[in-house]
Structures are given as structure tokens and as C-alpha cells.
């Protein structure tokens, strides 16, 4: 790739295979293509993934397996058992994620919805941390590490200091933002100064972060008194994000981190679509060379967008440690940093798209708990469905073929053959 760029003056640009030149006829970069799919594409990918997931649920269901033993004798048995298994699992998922009609009180009935929003909160923030760099042509695979660093700093500020009520929480939040921003900014800085590839940098920093938290949780400073388990003390109330609907009888876990996440979405949306910085970032993403010629400082753009991304992921860490978990563990980031990549893809790297994709993923995770508990369906099915969605999104021609979607890059002419619509997909 770098050989095609005779005019590249800075190593930062030459070493960036994710941003090949985008001339009038050149292919857009992979990041841009992944981000550019239509809403129909996301929806199609979701439906196809749910369908395949349903087949998988049916295939692993004991009753269906039994009926499949005499499939050719009486196929209806197999089909009805399969339908029962898949429909039952998805119904349980819905009841665990949106609305549970079996609840005794109204609060019980809508608790699943609040649970979905709770789980979605870190996903929204981490999803933004992936989506914004996408728009600047960067793959941020490092959201995981950035969440961990954010959680580490905000968690430490939370349990190690005793501060007045409002001040403490503010410092916990700021600490998380700074921790994440440093981890993300480091990627941008190294890329801008040395030309190292951001994917490799952010993956390696993930490892460092994961082992750093492991190491720190082995030190007495981070452990509870009288225990040598790798779990930090519980954060005091002054350091916690308050619940949106307090009241012990409600028992909703939804906390103000969700509101923070909505604010972050609005901010990211303004930043990337309306602000000067956002315009520059998008220009860098579309074509770094053209951006440079136009007088935009590309290196600075990389640093800024990665620092902002890190800050957003750091906020996801805050939502975890000060919102739901209340304590620092080695698994504080779960797999949110990696799910965030999928969320950003599904949301087409747009802030509000990411928001709704995160809600969907939150619903999957929250619903998966109920599905597992009531129907005994393996929880890994949820992960498979999530992975299938990405797979379909990464293969737009496949989804377009299945659902007969038009190709925006190459609109179907009146007499165009089927062949054409397939070929123009990329």
C-alpha cells in the first residue's frame, strides 16, 4: 500500500494500510466501507443472524434432537419441536430484556427494560470510542484496555479517598476519563509520531492493561483489608453513580451513567457532524493526503480522536466500577471493549446508530440471562448470534442477496441483470 503513495511525506500516513488513498475511482478504506452500510443492511444482518441463531437453538435442543431421530417418519414433530425451542428461547429473551408479563407488580414487569439500559450503558460509551476513530479512518481495537484503565483510575479514586459527596463522584468520573484518555491518546501519539499501526498498538495496550490490573489487584493497596483475593474494597456511596430510580423495593440497577452515556452520544454527534474538529477528522478519514494538502494537521487529528475515544471508553469503565459493580475486579471490563467494535459496526459508526446498536446488544445480554435461566438454552448462543451479525455486516453482498436490497454504491438500472447488482457491491 505504501508503495502507491509517492507523495506521502510523513511516516504516519505511509504506515497506515487502513487508509489507502481514496481517489475518485479508488476503493474507500475498509473502515469507511464497514461504516458506510445502510440501515437496511444492519437490519438484514440482524434478522439473518437471529434466524441462524434460532436454527442453532433448535439443533441443540434435546426435544428437537429426539424428534429428529425419526425425522423422515414424521417430519412435523421435528419442525414443531424446533419451533417450540427457538420461539421459547427468543420469548424468554424478550421477557428478560424488555417486558416480563409474569411480574407481580408493574416495576417487576419493566425491570428487564431497565436491566437492558444498564447493560447497554458501557456498550454505548465504548461503542462511541470505536465509532469516532472509525470516522477518522482508524480502527480502535483498544477500547477494552481503555475501559480497564478508566475503571482502574476511577476505582482507585473511589475507594482510596474519603471525600465530600458531590466532589468525590466528580473526581471518580474525571479520573476515569483521564485514565482512558491517556491509554487512547498513547495510541494516537505513537501512530502520529512513529507511524506504528493503531491496530497493533491498541491490541498490545489491551494486553498491558489486562495484566496491569491483575498485577495491581495482587498488591495490598488494591485489596480489601484481611483478604488476599484480587478484589478491591467496595466503593463508598459518595463515589457511586446514584440510581435513577432509587427505592429498595424497586431494585433497579439503572444508574445515572446511562444519562452520561446519552450526553456522550449528543456530544459525539455534535463533535463529528457539526464541529470544526469533527470536519477535520472526517477529512482525515476520507483521505489523509488530501486533508494534509488542505492544511489539516493529520498527526494532531490522530492524537485528538484517540484521546477522545479513550476518554469515552474510560467513562464506560466509570459506569462499570461506580455504576453496576461497585468494586474493581480483574474482569471489570467483561468483553465490552470487544463487543463495542461490533456495536460500532452495527451502528454504522454514527453516534446515534451506535446508541441503538448498544441498546440491542444490551437487550441480548440482559435477555440471555433469562433465556438461560428459564429455558436452559446455552448462553453461548447469544455470543454466536452477536458474532453472526458482524459476519453478515462484513459481507454486505450476502445480506443484499438474501434480502434483495439495492446497492447504494451502484444503483440497479432498469434492465440491469442480477449479476450486476452482485458485482457492484464493493
Amino acid at each position, binding site marked *: 500500500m505504501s508503495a502507491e503513495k509517492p507523495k506521502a511525506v510523513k511516516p504516519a500516513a505511509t504506515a497506515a494500510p487502513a487508509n489507502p488513498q481514496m481517489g475518485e475511482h479508488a476503493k474507500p478504506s475498509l473502515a469507511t466501507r464497514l461504516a458506510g452500510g445502510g440501515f437496511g443492511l444492519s437490519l438484514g444482518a440482524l434478522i439473518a443472524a437471529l434466524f*441462524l441463531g434460532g*436454527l*442453532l437453538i433448535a*439443533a*441443540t435442543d*434435546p426435544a*428437537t*434432537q*429426539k*424428534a*429428529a*431421530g425419526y425425522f423422515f417418519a414424521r417430519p412435523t414433530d421435528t419442525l414443531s419441536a424446533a419451533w417450540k425451542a427457538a420461539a421459547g428461547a427468543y420469548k424468554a429473551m424478550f421477557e*428478560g430484556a424488555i417486558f416480563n408479563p409474569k411480574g407481580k407488580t408493574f416495576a417487576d414487569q419493566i425491570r428487564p427494560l431497565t*436491566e437492558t439500559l444498564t*447493560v447497554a450503558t458501557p456498550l454505548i460509551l465504548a461503542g462511541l470510542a470505536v465509532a469516532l476513530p472509525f470516522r477518522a479512518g482508524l480502527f480502535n481495537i483498544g477500547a477494552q484496555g481503555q475501559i480497564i484503565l478508566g475503571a482502574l483510575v476511577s476505582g482507585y479514586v473511589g475507594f482510596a479517598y474519603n471525600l465530600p459527596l458531590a466532589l468525590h463522584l466528580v473526581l471518580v468520573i474525571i479520573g476515569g476519563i483521564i485514565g482512558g484518555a491517556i491509554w487512547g491518546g498513547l495510541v494516537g501519539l505513537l501512530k502520529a509520531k512513529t507511524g506504528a499501526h493503531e491496530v497493533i498498538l491498541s491490541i498490545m495496550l489491551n494486553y498491558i492493561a489486562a*495484566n496491569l490490573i*491483575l498485577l495491581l489487584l*495482587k498488591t495490598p493497596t488494591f485489596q480489601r483489608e484481611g*483478604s*488476599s*483475593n*484480587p*478484589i478491591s474494597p*467496595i466503593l463508598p456511596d459518595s463515589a457511586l453513580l446514584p440510581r435513577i430510580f432509587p427505592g429498595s423495593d424497586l*431494585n433497579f*440497577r439503572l444508574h445515572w451513567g446511562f444519562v452520561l452515556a446519552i450526553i456522550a452520544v449528543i456530544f459525539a454527534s455534535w463533535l463529528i457532524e457539526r464541529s470544526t474538529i469533527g470536519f477535520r477528522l472526517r477529512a482525515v478519514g476520507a483521505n489523509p493526503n488530501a486533508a494534509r494538502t488542505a492544511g489539516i494537521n493529520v498527526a494532531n487529528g490522530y492524537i485528538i480522536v484517540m484521546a477522545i475515544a479513550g476518554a469515552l471508553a474510560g467513562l464506560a469503565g466509570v459506569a*462499570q466500577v461506580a455504576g*453496576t*459493580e*461497585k*468494586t474493581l*475486579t*480483574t*474482569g*471489570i471490563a*467483561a*468483553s465490552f471493549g470487544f463487543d463495542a467494535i461490533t456495536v460500532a459496526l452495527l451502528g454504522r459508526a454514527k453516534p446515534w446508530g451506535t446508541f441503538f446498536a448498544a441498546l440491542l446488544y444490551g437487550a441480548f445480554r*440482559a435477555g440471555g*440471562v*433469562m433465556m*438461560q*435461566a*428459564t429455558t*436452559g438454552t*446455552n*448462553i*453461548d448462543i447469544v*455470543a454466536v448470534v452477536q458474532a453472526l451479525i458482524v459476519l453478515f455486516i462484513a*459481507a454486505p*453482498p*450476502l445480506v443484499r*442477496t438474501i434480502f434483495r436490497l439495492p446497492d447504494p454504491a451502484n444503483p440497479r438500472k432498469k434492465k440491469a441483470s442480477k*449479476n450486476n447488482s*452482485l*458485482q457492484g*457491491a*464493493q
Partner: protein
Amino acid sequence: MAFSRKHMASAGSVLGISALLLAGCGAAPEENSSSSGENSDYKGCMVSDFGGFDDKSFNQNTHDGLKAAEEELGMQVGEAESTSETDYGPNLNSMVQQGCNLTVTVGFGLADATKEAAAANPDSHFAIVDDNSIQADNVRPIVYDTAQAAFQAGYLAAAQTKTGKVATYGGQNFPTVTIFMDGFAQGVEYYNQQNNKDVKVLGWDTKSKSGTFTGDFEDQAKGKTNTQNFLSEGADIIMPVAGPVGGGTLEAVKEYNSSHSDKPASVVWVDSDGFETNPDYQDIILTSVQKLMKEAVLDTFKQDAAGNFTNEPYIGTLENGGVTLAPFHNFDDQVSEETKTALDDIKTKIISGEIKVETEGSPKA
């Protein structure tokens, strides 16, 4: 491009369709009892930690206890497998909402979630394996003083080594892991004192509380590399304390023995009797440090179903048989009578308190 998009797409759909057909046909119609015993009102439940019920270690052993209870008591069961720490709270909550009478949680990681759920649901009963930090009327801790049996294993290893070096390593530096390593090392020390020998322990230092860890409980390749390192340093008996990672040790030792048949190495397994759980490696498993979780979990369910729940901690020891040194099986004729007598003697002395095995992971009674 050699292939047109069209070909790729049709090849893709053919692949997809055949995969679907295979998924439908390949599924064997085997019976899987997941909801038997509808005649009982009693419901026993379990939440795993992030290792899952198939971790070949404490989650799995505890799960075996649930299965045994299901069979014996004819109770209903509910189970939730966690994929990460963030699942603990929601999973436990869903079990309580399912109306579980007793929910067993596995691992110290679930302590906070269990404590919270127990406080919010005073009428439900809970038991937590490998954690002794909760004091509540409706929570029973189930813990093991594994160091006692590991001490015996250390003595045995020191008596059996031909090279004068034995080794151990762990998955991660957790107290529930290092308790094995610490006990093992102390057993070797005791052997040295009693017999004026100088058998060395690689992989764990009792004084600095540091040693060799693979970093997770999944990657068998790391277990294999570690073991090969120990073997090349001259150790000939190795105790892996890392769940499935220990499989790498079995592999490495078997390979080593095929080229060193004159002085073969062997393995001390942990948690379950490795002779039974690893049938392919019976000829290299010297013994196992057993932690009988299945039995304790089964007993807890039985007691609770009979209305005799107690919040008194269950502490598995040599005395009550909760931890034990497994039989030597194939190695039985290689262990001298003298060593066997000494091991029995150690057991008596540990039970009487004459020998104190103290580690940071030891449960405090």
C-alpha cells in the same frame, strides 16, 4: 481477482445451506435430562463463575454435586453460567426470581453478589464455594483446607523423586490456588527435615509467596511450556494447579517419558482424582490432591431439602474427608511401605494439630 463476486456468493450460499443441513442431521438424538423430578417442590440452583460449568475444575465438580442432588432428591434444578464477572449479579438475581430454595455460587468472585442477594432475600438460602467471607443467617460457606492434602502430596513427591527436584505451578496467584502450592512445598520441607535430605521445589517459594503462574485457567500450551521448562531443569514430579491447563503438563510429561524411559517423570493432579478424569494418562499420574466438592454440595442440598439448613461453614479437611490424597493406583507398588506409613502418620498428626500447615489461603475456622 480470480473469482467473480457471483461465484463467491453462490459458493457461499451453497456452503451455508450445506452447513444448515449438517447442523440438522448431525445432531444426535440423545436424551438429556435437564428437568426431571417435577414431583418435587424443592428447587436447587447454581451460578458458575466465569470459568463455566465445563472447566474441569471447581465449577464442574460443584455442578456434579447439583446433578447428584437432582438425581437423589428428585428436585428441580436451575442453573446459570456466567461468562464474565459482570454476569454474577444478574445471574444470581434470575435464580432468586426463579424461586430457588438454595442457590450455590462458585468462587470468591461471587461473594459480593451472594452477600447482596442474601440480604435482599432473607427467605432464600445460599451456599458459596471457596469463600469464607460472608456471615449471614442464610449463607453457608463451603471451603477447603486443601493445604493439608497437598502437604501429604509434597511429602510423597519428595520421597519419590529421583532427581531431587519437584515442581509446581498455578493458573493465577489466587489464594485458592497457592494454598495447594504452599502445602506442597511445606510437605517437601517436612520430608527434608525428617530425612535429612535436600529435595528442591521449583515454581513456588513459601517465604516470598511467589512462584510460577501461567496467567489463566485456559491455555494448555502455557502449561506444556512451563512443564517442559521444569523437566529440563531436572524436576521429575510436577503438580499443576490450573484446572484444564494441567492437561498441558500431562502431555509434556508423556512426551518426555517416551524419550526418557529410564527415569520417567510423573504428575500430581489436583481437585479430582486425575486417574479417573484423565484415562489417557493413568500411567503418569502419581496421585491427586482431591477436594471433594461434589459431596459437600450434595450434602448441603440434602440438609436444606430436609429443612436442616445451617449457616455454619463447611470446612473440608483431612479429618472429615473433604480433602484427601487419592490412591496411588498404578504407582502403588513403587511407593515404599515406609513412605505409606509416614503419610498415614502425617495425616494423624495434621488431624491432631501436631503438624500445622499454614497458608494465607487456609480457611479460618
